[in-house]
């Protein structure tokens, strides 16, 4: 399929980044969807080759704004393998705490975006207001509310002192309380359930065939999570359950995310209460790696994130290949739009968590008259309720 060849490089369609969806419609029924990506090629893979291992930590983190800590984790754990260094347990716990905080705010963001897409602007505002609490916790632990930049080869850059540890524990209660409320809203609100149920359904067999990952896969009843299957950082020591649902529709995917966010709260609490003693910040960092190659994978909020790092020895990587979860979730799911109404297209798209605002516009082609209209996603969502 030629479409898959269009995007070159680490494309993460985050918010306000360009991806285009060509929807073919017969009246209001969707009969064909073509996803065009590749507008946002930044050459990050080449940039990683041109810079040292150390600089690469920060370049990898900037592939995506929302899941920067998981990108850094994937890169750092791969390079650590090549360098032959092992982070101390305390550093692993701190890394895990940061990554789980990131998962919470990422899932809250897509819940808010979904609420906006289906016309619940007030709910969007409420979730975004409360998401700030999770971002504040991340700032408290790492020093920045967006970019964590806490990873370093062989540990973390900043230790978690007692004052901040207890403060995070304290504030976490409020985040949990709000998450529980939003979960209840998504589970019980009549309009939300009607708008999301049976929309964009992916059967379990199809989900495996389409290679979707993350909450999209788990929403179709597949119990797959890298944190569970191939544990990294402190995940082998932290108990958690893999959330999955059998429904396979947009509603199931949203519920998986909200349940996962609540599970993350428990995981952070467990990690903070059992934070191992000892050093977390390395005194010096290695700068050269042995020749070889390494595959590194991590469960990002949107699914499995994958790095292939090749080293020829020396201070720079030879090649770094990045595969982001949205790449699979957006490109492989074109068939799931078929048979639905036009107004369901944004809902299905948002349920894959591709960061919906990256779709700057949608081209609607009426098959009968051949009329082509460019519409914004908001306009499209208001076309009609199917």
């Amino acid at each position, binding site marked *: 399929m030629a479409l898959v060849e269009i995007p070159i490089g680490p494309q993460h369609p985050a918010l306000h980044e360009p991806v285009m969806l060509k929807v073919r419609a017969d009246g209001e029924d969707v009969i064909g969807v073509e996803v065009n990506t590749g507008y946002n090629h930044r050459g990050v893979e080449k940039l990683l080759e041109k810079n040292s291992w150390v600089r690469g*930590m920060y370049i990898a983190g900037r592939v995506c704004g929302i899941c920067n800590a998981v990108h850094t984790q994937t890169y750092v754990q791969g390079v650590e393998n090549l360098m032959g260094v092992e982070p101390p347990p305390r550093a692993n716990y701190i890394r895990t705490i940061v990554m789980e905080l990131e998962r919470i705010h990422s899932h809250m963001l897509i819940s808010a975006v979904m609420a906006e897409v289906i016309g*619940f602007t007030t709910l969007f505002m409420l979730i975004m207001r409360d998401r700030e609490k999770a971002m504040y916790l991340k*700032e408290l632990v790492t020093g920045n509310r967006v*970019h964590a*930049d806490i990873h370093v080869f062989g540990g973390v850059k900043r230790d978690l002192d007692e004052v901040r540890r207890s403060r995070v524990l304290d504030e976490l209660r409020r985040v949990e309380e709000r998450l529980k409320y939003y979960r209840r809203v998504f589970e019980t609100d009549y309009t939300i359930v009607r708008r999301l149920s049976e929309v964009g359904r992916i059967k379990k067999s199809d989900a495996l065939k389409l290679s979707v990952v993350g909450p999209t896969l788990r929403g179709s009843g597949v119990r797959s999570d890298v944190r569970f299957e191939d544990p990294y950082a402190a995940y082998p020591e932290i108990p958690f359950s893999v959330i999955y649902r059998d429904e396979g529709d947009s509603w199931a995917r949203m519920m998986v995310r909200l349940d996962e966010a609540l599970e993350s709260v428990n995981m952070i609490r467990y990690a903070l209460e059992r934070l191992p003693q000892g050093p977390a910040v390395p005194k010096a960092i290695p700068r050269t790696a042995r020749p070889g190659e390494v595959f590194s994978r991590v469960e990002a909020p949107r699914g499995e994130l994958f790095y292939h790092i090749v080293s020829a020895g020396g201070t720079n990587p030879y090649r770094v290949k990045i595969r982001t979860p949205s790449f699979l979730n957006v490109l492989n799911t074109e068939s799931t739009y078929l048979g639905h109404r036009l107004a369901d297209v944004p809902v299905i798209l948002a349920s894959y968590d591709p960061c919906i605002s990256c779709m700057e516009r949608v081209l609607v082609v009426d098959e009968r008259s051949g009329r082509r209209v460019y519409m914004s996603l908001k306009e499209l969502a208001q076309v009609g309720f199917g």
Partner: protein
Amino acid sequence: MRLSLLGEVLKNITRRASTIKYPVARELTVAPGSRGRHYADLTKCTGCSLCAIDCPANAIAMEKLPQPLKHNPRGVFPVVDYGKCVFCYQCVFVCPVKAYVTTEVFEMADYSTDVSRDSSLSTLQSGESP
């Protein structure tokens, strides 16, 4: 069970507005220890250039010290360009003598280029030169 958002909305009517009227009302605060404006303390800096080598944004330039202020054998000091800086604090972490002074200052929008030169040089004037 049908849950209405109305209760939540009504509850919020009596609450203080969440919107911060920045910069009219300066209520914006950052978490303690937030990564803000940083500069090198020249009484500690040895001019080793490690921060400039590691900076992923190429925001640090090693400049020659003014003659009477020469405080290290190399005679150079790091100048951070805040317009380029991504505030990853790799320079702060990598500095072998912990020369960087960190602050929580984040309000750096300016019409002119903002660099750390004056802040760094002021540390020599107030402190003692070795």
